[in-house]
């Protein structure tokens, strides 16, 4: 069965060009870039080029790029570095819709002497900057706010946020794992101090990430060890993956226009096609300010895992904010923070596309989904004569 992969915010396929560039570093060029011999040393040149390619994608200089093992490590490094550099400050500001890499760390720090402000979002998943303005204080060590939401694709006004935080002289970090490679990003124009990105969200392999640290930002390493990354991150470099990330960033820059035109058109076609054919369906999140590849759609009176399992029978891959898919019993914290009603939150499906998706695939999903939802609604006791439901668990 052909796989129709529409779950690119979860992970992406490694681009063939990326894999091709990586392969030599597993056998012919397996040296350690720190070695004194030229067999190892020659690899250092490749790392340099990869660093330049990553920097170019986000408008940074190569010295400001730090390679890590993943987005989570980048986020942890940034937040830990900021609080370690400002030991007298005991306040952190973030939002209620962050990825677990930020949310759970902030909650953890909340139990270890830090006061954490979780900024709310509105029904469309948008921030009210007035809340941020009020929360900033002389005790604030770091503001960490994501660039794009992984579940809804909603974009936060990082430019305005960064200006606001900068004026107060506070460190600003953004988890841009979902944004890098999908929308234009230029840290020369936007005063973020630190920015996290992850390889496997932009067609590089899993297990490689990067952290942008603006020149002059106070920093202390999270992984203490050797002199690698100028002492900012110990551990022998993951050479093949760094080379892969470099290539993936170069490709992402080339494909940025396609992502924002062709992929966006495919997403819109998918979204509109679904809304037109399926009643009681709604888009979650601000449709204006959104990643070009993402749509989160709720189908009332059906449950998300059941939808995923039925789509799986047709080879269609997507995600759900439903409780049952995650092993937890409550629907996604993002949808709950937005106040999406339970009738809809349990039946939410996220489709996230990439440049590898085709129009035929979108047509196939639009063709198959209505009958899947219809079948499940026929099974549902809430569908039919009375579409009302008791408000709480009984």
């Amino acid at each position, binding site marked *: 069965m052909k796989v129709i992969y529409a779950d690119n915010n979860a992970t992406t396929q490694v681009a063939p060009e990326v894999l091709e560039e990586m392969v030599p570093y597993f056998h012919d060029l397996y040296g350690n870039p720190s070695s004194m011999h030229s067999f190892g040393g020659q690899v250092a040149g490749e790392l340099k080029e990869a660093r330049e390619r990553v920097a170019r994608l986000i408008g940074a200089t190569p010295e400001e790029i730090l390679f890590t093992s993943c987005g989570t490590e980048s986020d942890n490094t940034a937040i830990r570095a900021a609080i370690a550099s400002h030991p007298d400050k005991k306040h952190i500001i973030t939002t209620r819709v962050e990825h677990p890499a930020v949310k759970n760390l902030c909650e953890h720090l909340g139990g270890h002497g830090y006061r954490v402000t979780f900024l709310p979002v509105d029904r469309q998943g948008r921030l009210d900057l007035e809340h941020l303005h009020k929360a900033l204080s002389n005790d604030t060590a770091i503001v960490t706010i994501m660039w794009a939401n992984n579940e809804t694709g909603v974009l936060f006004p990082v430019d305005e946020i960064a200006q606001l935080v900068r004026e107060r002289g506070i460190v600003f970090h953004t988890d841009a794992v979902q944004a890098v490679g999908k929308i234009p990003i230029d840290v020369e124009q936007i005063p973020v101090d630190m920015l996290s990105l992850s390889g496997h969200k932009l067609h590089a392999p899993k297990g490689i990430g990067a952290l942008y640290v603006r020149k002059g930002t106070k920093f202390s390493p999270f992984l203490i060890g050797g002199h690698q990354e100028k002492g900012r991150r110990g551990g022998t470099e993951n050479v093949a993956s760094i080379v892969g990330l470099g290539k993936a960033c170069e490709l992402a820059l080339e494909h940025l226009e396609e992502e924002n035109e062709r992929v966006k058109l495919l997403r819109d076609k998918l979204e509109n096609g679904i809304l037109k054919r399926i009643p009681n369906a709604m888009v979650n999140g601000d449709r204006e300010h959104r990643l070009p590849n993402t749509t989160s759609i709720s189908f009332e009176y059906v*449950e998300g895992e059941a939808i995923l399992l039925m789509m799986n029978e047709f080879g269609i891959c997507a995600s759900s904010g439903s409780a*049952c898919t995650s092993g937890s019993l*409550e629907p996604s914290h993002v949808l709950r923070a937005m106040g999406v009603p339970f009738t809809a939150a349990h039946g939410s499906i996220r489709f996230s596309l990439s440049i590898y998706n085709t129009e035929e695939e979108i047509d196939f999903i639009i063709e198959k989904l209505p009958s899947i939802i219809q079948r499940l609604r026929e099974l549902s006791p*809430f569908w039919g004569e009375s579409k009302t439901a008791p*408000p709480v*668990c009984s």
Partner: protein
Amino acid sequence: MWEYTDKVKDHFLHPRNVGEVEGADGMGEVGSLACGDALKLTFKLDDEKRIQDIRFKTFGCGSAIASSSALTEMVKGMTLEEAEKVTNQDIADYLGGLPKEKMHCSVMGRDALEKAIAYYRGEPEKKLEGEIVCECFGVTDVEIERAVRENNLTGVEDVTGYTKAGGGCESCHEKIQEIIDKVHGKPHVAGRKPPQLTNIQKIQLIQETLEREVKPSLQKDGGDIELIDVDGNTVLVKLRGTCATCVASQVTLKHYVESKLREMVTPELVVEEVQ
């Protein structure tokens, strides 16, 4: 991804007995949209009072739909006396097992059947028994106790898997643990306050602890310890044998003897050596 058995997948993709029985003899509804799963079960009896037709409507995940479908297949043709003996474990077994986190789907099936039978018998709707323990999912202590007993559950996570209790804000986890301990006949330990000891009791306990716990391990290394006096919370001891000349004896005293006494007697104790 959940590991569902082929039978679960089969019952999910090809559910049996979907719908509502017209002119039903029995009807049971459990769950709600807010909970994320709900089941409506209706049945009709034949002349011999056996379940002739039984149908379901389920809102929920794959295993909720499969559990409902399996239940209807299992009890068809049974008398109500036979049907009411079906447990949630029977439903899970029929399906070749369910992931632990999904056992509440089978519990939902059994609950709906119980309700439907009570409806047929004209028994008054059971009032919520016991007290709500999990506010998020409205689960009572009686329900938790039953799940623990019937399925021999030993951890809070298991209870959440079977009843959903504790799956939300998690503030009831301690209460759930207490219920588990009670069912298994264990005294509840967490949060127990150290008993108020009289001076005599305290000295006795210190003496006992030194004899039973501390001395044997010191003696293994050729050392020994002697209790000289107890002054309030200060325990005065004298080290003997190799301990008396050992450079690490102060470490032993603080890290081993003192922490042992604090653990076994009372956390306020301080151990000091008499020269």
